[in-house]
């Protein structure tokens, strides 16, 4: 590759170095020269719509938008003078008069709003133009966020985010001129949209309050919040979270822009489901459903745990921290059986746990992506976003082998919902993969079925025959910590019923942790409710109430993701930190501490 040519420009008399192809704004920012912007956002295609970043280039009679103008070697640029500032002020006044910007009733006031910030810093007290007061709709049909067109300045940051980061292109601009409006799909609502993934990236990137989070609205300005960085524990990707907190409450959750895993992007699980869903939290120990003290609960457990070693068992959810997993491994010798309950076909995936280093970064560069028995748009939203962008923006090939349909099928070169071994399909697969230099094969639990294994063997055969580079292999379980916990030596079971049936248990300890369903999924399996009924003492360690905690003899309250400290290991083998964001609710205790106390 040829290194880009170095260029030098003069900005406000200051000599600034940059590279050929960089815009004036990029070079100015890199040299700590401030140019006001509204529609510009690093990482998105420049739009040049807001006209706040206009600058004067010597020799050019017009003011140019610095965000969209490539710098020319030797040019002399002025960012602030009377003419430029007067035009910026006029632009801001037009923006303020065009729609109904009523700051006192907006949740993004007091410093959160880019438009307000720019208008105030430009000293705009009143405006010279008539206010238009248009009648505009507000869409609050979305589950987690809404759109208020009254506050929209049509900067299209949401449109570009939706297209270039999440890759679904749900949002776009309809109509022309003053009637322009952001639309969802073909002018429907967020609630009715069938393409919106509810990742909420558009809300984070909206410079005004036009897109707003429902759960965060009016809970405090994020600019007045504390930011705590932690890790999402909802899937094995392990995205970095930036949690805004105020007065020991979570105000909002954004992606951590500095995380090497997700670089600021999140899916609906990390962005909203972990905190913005109403769930019934357990804050005290319960004995037969009645609140009790820890001493009473532990005494009850100690009485029941006097059973023989082989009459006791420990069943854990595949979502524990590395430290808790180590504690489970340590206490394993005091109980007859230890197991981790995982989803269908996940046990095979965990049988030989391997991590794929730098997989998420490599995935961004892949030129052919194969999905085998894995459904990222449901289970690993950030991976799905990378795949969509790779396919739609960089022309990567996409091949999907999965029984379930997903939104990714629409972009796929090959989407085989029913895998056949007929040569027509495989010739096409070979044709699509031919010439691929950086292929990536992502496989999930369903790659472990007999047909899945056959397809995998064929695919690897094709990839090895290709002259391209070593394929990226990434095993993606659904359970967040299944791989790391397998590595810690905890055996996985897919069917809890037969596992329970094989022993005559008197004491069963289930660690559900902060699973959002409170462990209710265990009861979905046939015979499990009946088998649990036969055990003299069932202890459940969980954060949320569920059908399982209703059945338990003793319930111990465990801490949530936002109250924990420790580490988790993601599919790349990265050891990622969990940091306490808010104080522990009620009498909840950490899973590790509870296990060590109970099995001391």
């Amino acid at each position, binding site marked *: 590759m040829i290194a880009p040519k170095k260029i030098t420009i003069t900005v406000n008399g200051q000599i600034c170095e940059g590279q050929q192809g960089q815009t004036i704004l990029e070079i100015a920012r890199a040299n700590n020269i401030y140019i006001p912007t509204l529609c510009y956002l690093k990482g998105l295609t420049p739009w040049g719509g807001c006209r706040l970043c206009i600058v004067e280039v010597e020799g050019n009679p017009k003011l140019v938008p610095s965000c969209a103008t490539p710098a020319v070697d030797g040019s002399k640029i002025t960012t602030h003078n009377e003419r430029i500032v007067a035009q910026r002020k006029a632009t801001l006044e037009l923006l303020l008069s065009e729609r*109904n910007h009523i700051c*006192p009733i907006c949740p993004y006031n*007091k410093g959160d709003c880019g438009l307000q910030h720019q208008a105030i810093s430009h000293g705009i*007290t*009143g405006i010279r133009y*008539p*206010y238009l007061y248009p*009648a505009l709709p507000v869409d609050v049909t979305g589950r987690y966020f809404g759109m208020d067109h009254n506050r929209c300045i049509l900067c299209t940051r949401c449109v570009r985010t939706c297209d270039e980061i999440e890759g679904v292109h749900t949002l776009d601009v309809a109509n022309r001129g003053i009637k322009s409006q952001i639309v969802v799909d073909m002018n429907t609502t967020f609630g009715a949209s069938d393409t919106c993934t509810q990742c909420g990236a558009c809300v984070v990137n909206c410079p005004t309050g036009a897109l707003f989070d429902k759960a965060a609205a009016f809970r405090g300005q994020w600019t007045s919040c504390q930011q705590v960085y932690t890790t999402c524990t909802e899937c094995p990707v392990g995205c970095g979270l930036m949690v805004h907190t105020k007065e020991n409450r979570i105000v909002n959750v954004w992606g951590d822009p500095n995380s090497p895993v997700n670089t600021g992007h999140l899916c609906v699980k990390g962005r909203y489901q972990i905190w913005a869903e109403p769930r019934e939290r357990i804050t005290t120990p319960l004995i037969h459903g009645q609140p009790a003290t820890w001493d009473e609960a532990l005494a009850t457990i100690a009485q029941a745990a006097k059973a023989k070693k082989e009459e006791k068992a420990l069943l854990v959810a595949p979502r524990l921290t590395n430290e808790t997993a180590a504690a489970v491994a340590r206490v394993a010798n005091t109980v007859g059986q230890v197991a981790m309950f995982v989803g269908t076909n996940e046990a095979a995936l965990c049988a030989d746990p391997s991590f794929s280093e730098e997989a998420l970064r490599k995935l961004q560069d892949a030129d052919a992506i194969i999905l085998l028995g894995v459904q990222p748009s449901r289970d690993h939203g950030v991976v799905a976003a990378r795949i969509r962008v790779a396919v739609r923006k960089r022309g990567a090939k996409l091949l999907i082998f999965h029984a379930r349909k997903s939104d990714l099928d629409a972009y796929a070169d090959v989407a085989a919902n029913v895998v056949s071994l007929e040569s027509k399909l495989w010739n096409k697969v070979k044709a699509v993969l031919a010439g691929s230099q950086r292929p990536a094969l992502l496989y999930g639990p369903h790659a472990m079925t007999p047909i899945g294994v056959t397809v995998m063997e064929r695919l690897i055969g094709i990839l090895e025959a290709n002259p391209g580079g070593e394929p990226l292999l990434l095993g993606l379980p659904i359970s967040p910590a299944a791989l790391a916990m397998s590595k810690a030596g905890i055996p996985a079971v897919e069917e809890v019923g037969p596992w329970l049936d094989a022993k005559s248990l008197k004491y069963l300890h289930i660690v559900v942790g902060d699973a959002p369903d409170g462990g209710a999924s265990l009861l979905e399996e046939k015979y499990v409710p009946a088998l649990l009924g036969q055990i003299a003492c069932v202890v459940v360690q969980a954060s949320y109430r569920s059908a399982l905690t209703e059945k338990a003899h003793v319930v111990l309250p465990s801490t949530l993701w936002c109250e924990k400290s420790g580490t988790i290991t993601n599919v790349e083998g990265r050891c990622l930190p969990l940091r306490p964001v808010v104080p522990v609710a009620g009498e909840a205790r950490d899973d590790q501490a509870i296990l060590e106390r109970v099995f001391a």
Partner: protein
Amino acid sequence: MKKTPVKKPARKSEATASAATAPAATPKVKVATMWLSGCSGCHMSLLDIDERILELAKHVDILFSPIVDIKIEDMPKVDVAIVEGCVNNTDQEHELKMLRERAKVLIALGDCAVTGNVPSLRNQFTARDCLSRAYEQTESTQIACIPNDPVVPKLLPRAHPLQEIVKVDLHIPGCPPDADTIWYALTELLAGRIPQFHEKNMRYD
């Protein structure tokens, strides 16, 4: 404000600006305040200048105000008129125009006066629909009747910020503007200067 009666050393800082240094013999500045479609929060914010109001009283006579017992017909000529709220009905329009005629300087105080703010939310609907919602369709309505007595001022088709009705000399945005901002604006005017607002003494919310 050309014939400013009070001369003070030039000072930028609103918090330290004091009118105490002015000679006592100069005639006081005549001030009117008016409360149109607003929540009175801006008047509250004016009172929030706390003990500085005693300083202000040395240099200012408030001749017309919601808290001065005076009839609208007796509105005096003033040097400075401070108006809170936007113009929503025929009476307000009439009063504001009257005040403009009698005032040398007219200040739009607060977002309602400057932009229309919350009262302007009704501009997306017709006046008839707004009245109907308020008097006929509320959950507690028992006898649906839109007041039509000629004594009751007529609602204008839409709410107007002051600048759409009269010439405004100074806008002070904020909902409400901070007491310090109001104090700064008043002391600057008393000193014969036009206030220059900066980021720290401006707000829209």
